[in-house]
Every structure is written in structure tokens, then in C-alpha cells.
């Protein structure tokens, strides 16, 4: 259980902005932090990790990590952190990157096996692809068997196919290690696949907090438009099939026929079109 109540003045591109966050996160949750850039997501992650100072309280499993000005040093917080740019130790081989964190050979071997990196264990980071580097980075973050795994837009630099593979691996590792995971992400399909809770930040405040479905689905109003999208899920409810599709930055659910349901595959790129004779216009 993470209890967090923090305040910090941020000095961003739009001038000073207070970051004010009150938040409880249950053990084992997979939380996605979303919001425009500059809204304070990364700062929040860094405060939790102890990489940045803040006022307030952070309590993890009844132990204070931050209380007023007393702060537990980053070295003593039980966290793993995955950076957007991987930040691997360039002077060490893949295996050494893991063992540097903790000299637990069995765990390193297990992690490398789970992420199919065993063959690459003697290679150096500069000879790896982006996806391989991020895998190593995730393994390294888990070497401490952290209570909390923090991921700062871990997959945003990777191509879609690699992203999907790593999303599945992340979910598998999250379950296997039973960590509480907090991930900064902008990608609705990624959030939908991985997280069981989404927190949306705007100008340093939480403006939305709920399940990915509640927050990401925007099915109100019908459009007489045609959209390209990615099919995420097909669910059968009684006699109808419901498909969940990612279109651009949003997710929609549509009813499809059983014949269509049989011919479609999850992950496929599809075109959705709909007629609407009485469109509803809502102002943003």
C-alpha cells in the first residue's frame, strides 16, 4: 500500500505550477499515469523514487519514505526504475548490468530467460537494439526484487510490434514478481492492455482516476465517419459481439456480427465506419 500526499513547485515552460497530489495505491496494482507533457507525471515518479525533493508524506507499507523534510535516500527505497532512454551501464555486459544491482546469479538467469536474452548475456549495450536494451533495463530494475516498479514511458521509443511484445512481457513480469507497477504512458491501447487503473494528471493535479474503460472509452455520440484503427478485443455478451478498437488516441467499442467476429483477428488493423443521421455536437 502506497500512501502519497505531496506538494512541489514546478518550474516548467508555462511558468511556475504547483504539483499537488494525494493518492493511495494498493499493493499489486498496475497504474498508468497519463496526461499532457509538462503535467507533472515524470516528476511524480521521480519524487516517489527519491530522485527529486518534495514536501509532504510518502508512506509505503506503513514505513515513511518521506515525512516533511526527512527523506529516505534513493538507495534505500525498494524500487525499480525503467528510464525512457534505458540508461544501461555502457561499460558492463548485459549480465553484469543485472549483477551490478544484486549479485544474485539465479535471479539474473531467470530474468534473462523470461525475456529471451540469455544468448545476449555477454554482449555490451551498444550492440543491442532498442527493444533488447529496454528488456535489459526492465530486468535490471527487477534485480532488487522491488516493491514498486516505476516505468517512465518505457516503450515510447520502440516500434509498434516491439511495443506489443514488450507489453506482454511487462504484464507477465508484473504478475510473476507481484510488484506494484506505476507506468507513465500516452498510448491508450497500451494502457488498456496493461493497467487496471488510470490516473490522469493536468497542470499538477489529478483530474481523473478510474479504470481504463471508464476513462479511455469515449463512445458518446456517433460519427458519420470512417476510421482506421487497431482491434484490441472481441467479447461475446449474450448473443452479440463487442469489439474494442483503438482509433488514434482513443478507444471505442462497437457491436459486430458473429460472422465479422469470426473473420477478425486481435491486433489486426481495421476500418470502422458508421452512419449517423442526428449527430450530437459536444464542445470540448
Amino acid at each position, binding site marked *: 500500500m502506497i500512501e502519497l500526499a505531496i506538494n512541489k513547485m514546478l518550474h516548467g515552460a508555462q511558468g511556475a505550477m504547483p504539483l499537488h497530489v494525494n493518492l493511495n495505491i494498493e499493493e499489486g496494482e498496475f497504474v498508468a499515469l497519463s496526461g499532457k507533457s509538462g503535467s507533472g507525471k515524470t516528476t511524480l515518479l521521480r519524487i516517489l*523514487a527519491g*530522485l527529486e525533493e518534495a514536501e509532504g508524506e510518502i508512506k509505503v507499507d506503513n514505513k515513511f519514505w518521506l515525512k516533511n523534510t526527512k527523506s529516505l535516500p*534513493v*538507495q*534505500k*527505497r525498494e*524500487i*525499480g*526504475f525503467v*528510464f525512457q*532512454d534505458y*540508461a*544501461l*551501464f*555502457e*561499460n558492463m555486459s548485459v549480465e553484469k548490468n543485472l549483477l*551490478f*544491482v*544484486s549479485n544474485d546469479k539465479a535471479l539474473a538467469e531467470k530474468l534473462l530467460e523470461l525475456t529471451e536474452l540469455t544468448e545476449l548475456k555477454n554482449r555490451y549495450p*551498444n550492440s543491442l537494439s532498442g527493444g533488447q536494451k529496454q528488456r535489459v533495463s526492465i530486468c*535490471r*530494475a527487477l*534485480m*532488487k526484487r522491488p516493491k514498486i516498479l516505476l516505468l517512465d514511458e518505457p516503450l515510447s521509443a520502440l516500434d509498434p510490434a516491439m511495443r506489443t511484445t514488450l507489453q506482454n512481457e511487462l504484464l507477465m513480469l508484473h504478475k510473476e514478481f507481484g510488484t506494484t507497477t506505476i507506468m507513465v504512458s500516452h498510448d491508450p491501447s497500451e494502457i488498456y492492455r496493461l493497467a487496471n487503473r488510470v490516473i490522469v494528471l493536468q497542470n499538477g493535479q489529478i483530474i481523473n482516476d478510474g479504470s481504463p474503460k471508464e476513462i479511455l472509452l469515449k463512445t458518446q455520440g456517433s460519427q458519420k465517419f470512417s476510421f482506421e484503427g487497431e482491434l484490441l478485443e472481441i467479447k461475446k455478451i449474450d448473443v452479440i459481439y463487442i469489439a474494442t478498437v483503438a482509433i488514434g488516441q482513443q478507444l471505442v467499442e462497437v457491436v459486430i456480427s458473429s460472422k465479422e467476429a469470426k473473420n477478425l483477428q486481435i491486433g489486426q488493423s481495421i476500418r470502422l465506419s458508421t452512419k449517423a443521421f442526428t449527430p450530437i455536437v459536444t464542445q470540448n
Partner: protein
Amino acid sequence: MNYEPFVISFKLAALTAFILFCIALPLSWYLSQTKSRIKPFLEALTALPIVLPPSVLGFYLLWALSYNSPIGHFFEETFGVKLVFSFTGLVVASCFYSLPFMVQPLQNGFESINKNMLEASYIAGKSKLQTIFFVALPNMKPAVLTALIVTFAHTVGEFGVVLMVGGSIPGETKVASVAIYEMVENMDYTAAHIYSAIMVGLSFVVLLSVYIFNARQNRRFGL
């Protein structure tokens, strides 16, 4: 031919490089990490020996290290060490004279290291000291080598400060550059030629090896 001045020069340069590395390591790390307002003052102070005429530096050092000043007095009374016109004094003077040549490459090196890499090491539970030695330094080998070699070479090449603080005592403070100066004064051009040629050759070889090493490192890390 007497090669003793070369031996003294190299002994002085090696010792200076070693001592300065130990002093400059924490200083350059601090300068690379701090956001404090005193940073520009420290940087300007460290860079002073580059712009000051060696005679100014030599004069102040002579004044500060002599028996008449509190510092020189303290060292001579407490440790029995004479700091002017002695080899020890030369080492102290060289450390001031060559300080920027050690601090600046190391500071640039530390600043070039990805901050996230250092933070990843802290998150892994490693202290600052462990991070410096196991993560930062191994990832900036060209900077470390440049700092050591340039400091060494610069100390071998110093003349003004050495002459003022050390004089020219054979076997004690008479380094190669001072020896050449005296040879020219005495119109012993043959010896001056030989000494000078050796200096040019050695300096070139040292610099060449630094550049070759750095080029190889950059290729290896794909920079």
C-alpha cells in the same frame, strides 16, 4: 650527456599528475553535479592558472611558501620541509600550475555521462563513491586519459613557475626546460639541440597516443 634533468622532469610530472588526480576527482565531480551559485566562482578560480603569467603565479607561490610566510614557516617548523628551492616545493607549485588541466577534462567527462545512468546506479543501491568508480569513470576513459596525459605533459613543459619557485639546483630542481634555458645562456647549442629534440619527440609521441586511444574509444562506443 647528463640526462638527470629529464628524470627530474618526469618524476615531477608523474607525481603531480597522481596528486592532482586525487584532488581534482572530488572537485570536478562536485562541479559537474552542483547547481550552486558558487559554481562559476570555483570554475573561474580553477581556470586562473591558464591565463595568469607564470611569473605572477611563481611570485605568489614563492611569497606564500617561503619561510617568512605563515604557510612556509609552519611546514618547515612542523615537518622540517623546505617548500622553496626544493623538489617538494616544485611539486606543490606544479599542482597549482596544472590544476585546470586536470579539472577541466574530468569535469567535461562527468558532465557527458548520462544523468539517468548515474541515477540508475543510485536506485541500484550504490553510493556516490561506488557510482563514480564503477559507473562514471569506466564510461569516460578518454576524459580520464586526456586529463592525466595533458597534466603530465603540461608539467613537463612548465618553465616560469619552476624557475621562480625551484631555481636551478642540479639533481634537485633543475628540470629539462630549465636546463635548456641554461644551455642556451651558456651558448652550448649542441646540448640545447639534443635536449630540445628529445622534448619535441617525447611530447609528440605522448599526444599522438592520446589521440589514437580516444579515436579507438569513440569508434568502440559508436560516437
